[in-house]
């Protein structure tokens, strides 16, 4: 397993525009008129026309933070075996991603396609893992007899959208009903041959959606079976088999779970005794809040063609980027190499300025 630190914003200073609390004029609904003269920081259009400045900041949507974990499996097997899969039965075997994987492996060739784990807001979050995969769409032979393939790219991936009705709009204020909408596009082999020994590629697209009351630490399982498998059933029920052979039947199983948002340790930078208070006090006197933002992106190159088993809790405990890198390295497979390539940048972005801004 090889680890590359793709990108590191070393203490990237971000100036984030914020309107806070009931003290803000904008939040109290009063019109806010900015200085729009030449020395002001209003936009050019506002300066030119002297339009009263109205911050675009809207009150936030509801927030209920949670840790979200999702895994997607593909199971290839006979149509009969896949048809015996049952989401409820699988849920009872889905205490962990590994136990579900083991249960599915008994039904056919099982592959872990995707795994995500991250903090979310159950009221509104979107997660996308997409990739453009090269596929062969044709083959030609050169005058010297060498085969050259024509390549096209197909977009596949996994999209999760979490949403829940706001309590103010009729939702249950105690326990929100969370809708988990999942779109999945998976690359597979088609049936037609485009060259000798070379089959075309096909994409299976699935959409699943489930709305349930939020229940922490309760794994949920969604199941869908490729329609070709059902087609095969119909043909066999008809005593047929006359139609063309279906592509390999496949079931797609998605396990997801919400957990309490206990991530990381907040005991960093302990000199500022109550950082949240600091933030709030800053906001009282100004509608610009400056904070340090640090982000590091790591790419872990797996040593094998299987998804590595990363223990998220071990990663979340890392208090610094260096400790996280060390934690990732500790998870490496024996004999693999490790490289660290880091790039850092520092930038300061100014967003908007209102009438109460102080430099």
């Amino acid at each position, binding site marked *: 397993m090889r680890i590359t630190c*793709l990108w590191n*914003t070393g*203490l990237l200073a971000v100036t984030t525009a*914020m*309107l*806070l609390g009931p003290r803000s004029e904008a*939040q109290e609904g009063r019109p806010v008129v900015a200085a729009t003269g030449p020395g002001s920081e209003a936009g050019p259009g506002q300066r030119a026309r002297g339009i009263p400045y109205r911050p675009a*900041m*809207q*009150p936030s*949507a509801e*927030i209920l933070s949670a840790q979200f974990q999702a895994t997607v499996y593909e199971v290839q097997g006979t149509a009969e075996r896949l048809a015996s899969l049952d989401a409820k039965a699988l849920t009872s075997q889905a205490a962990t991603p590994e136990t579900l994987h083991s249960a599915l492996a008994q039904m056919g060739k099982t592959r872990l396609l*995707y*795994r995500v*784990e*991250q*903090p979310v807001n159950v009221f*509104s*979050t*979107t*997660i996308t893992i*997409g*990739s*453009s*995969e*090269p596929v*062969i769409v044709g083959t030609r032979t050169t005058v010297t007899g060498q085969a*050259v393939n*024509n390549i096209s790219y197909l977009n596949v*991936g996994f999209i999760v959208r979490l949403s829940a009705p706001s309590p*103010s709009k009729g939702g249950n204020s105690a326990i929100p009903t969370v809708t988990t909408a999942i779109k999945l596009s998976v690359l*597979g082999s088609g049936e037609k041959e485009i060259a000798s020994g070379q089959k075309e590629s096909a994409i299976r697209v699935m959409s699943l959606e489930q709305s349930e009351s939020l229940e922490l630490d309760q794994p949920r399982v969604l199941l869908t079976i490729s329609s070709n498998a059902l087609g095969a059933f119909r043909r066999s029920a008809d005593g047929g088999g006359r139609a063309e052979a279906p592509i390999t039947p496949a079931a797609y199983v998605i396990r997801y779970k919400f957990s309490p948002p206990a*991530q990381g340790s*907040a005991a*960093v*930078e302990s000199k*500022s005794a109550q*950082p*949240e208070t600091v*933030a*709030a006090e*800053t906001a009282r006197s100004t509608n610009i*809040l*400056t904070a*340090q*933002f*640090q*982000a*590091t*992106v790591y*790419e872990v190159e*797996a040593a094998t*063609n*299987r*998804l590595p088993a*990363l223990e998220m809790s071990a*990663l*979340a405990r*890392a208090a610094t980027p260096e400790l996280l890198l060390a934690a990732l390295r500790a998870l490496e497979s024996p004999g693999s190499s490790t490289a660290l390539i880091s790039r850092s*940048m520092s930038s300061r972005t100014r967003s908007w300025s209102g009438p109460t801004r102080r430099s």
Partner: protein
Amino acid sequence: MVRTNKEVVSGTTMGRDGEPINSYTSQSMGVSVRLSAQAPPKNAERESPDVTVSFNVSADAPGTTELGLGQTVQSFLVISQEHNEPLELGRPRVMLAMGSPSPAEQTKPFVCVIRYQFGPAGTK
């Protein structure tokens, strides 16, 4: 935003003397982070703002699909997410995204780990 353009081979033809001539396309890769903030809802007890954190990571990955003449073509990943959370200073967050989208047995999966943290202004 940290982005770079990378030239990747998109096709091959044979020259008059039998030498391969590649055609290239340019792929943009890198990381972009978008932050925005909102005041908490009026009925919320917290005073700190809510932050929308949006990450977009795009990268190339070695592929196994053969173009011909000994060349393979790469695949390209895009990992993005957007969620909002109450601003909490000094608490690191870790996100994990991994996948194995190619059906080819020998293709290695990708694993991406993102760590981010807000801190009080002026700290290092």
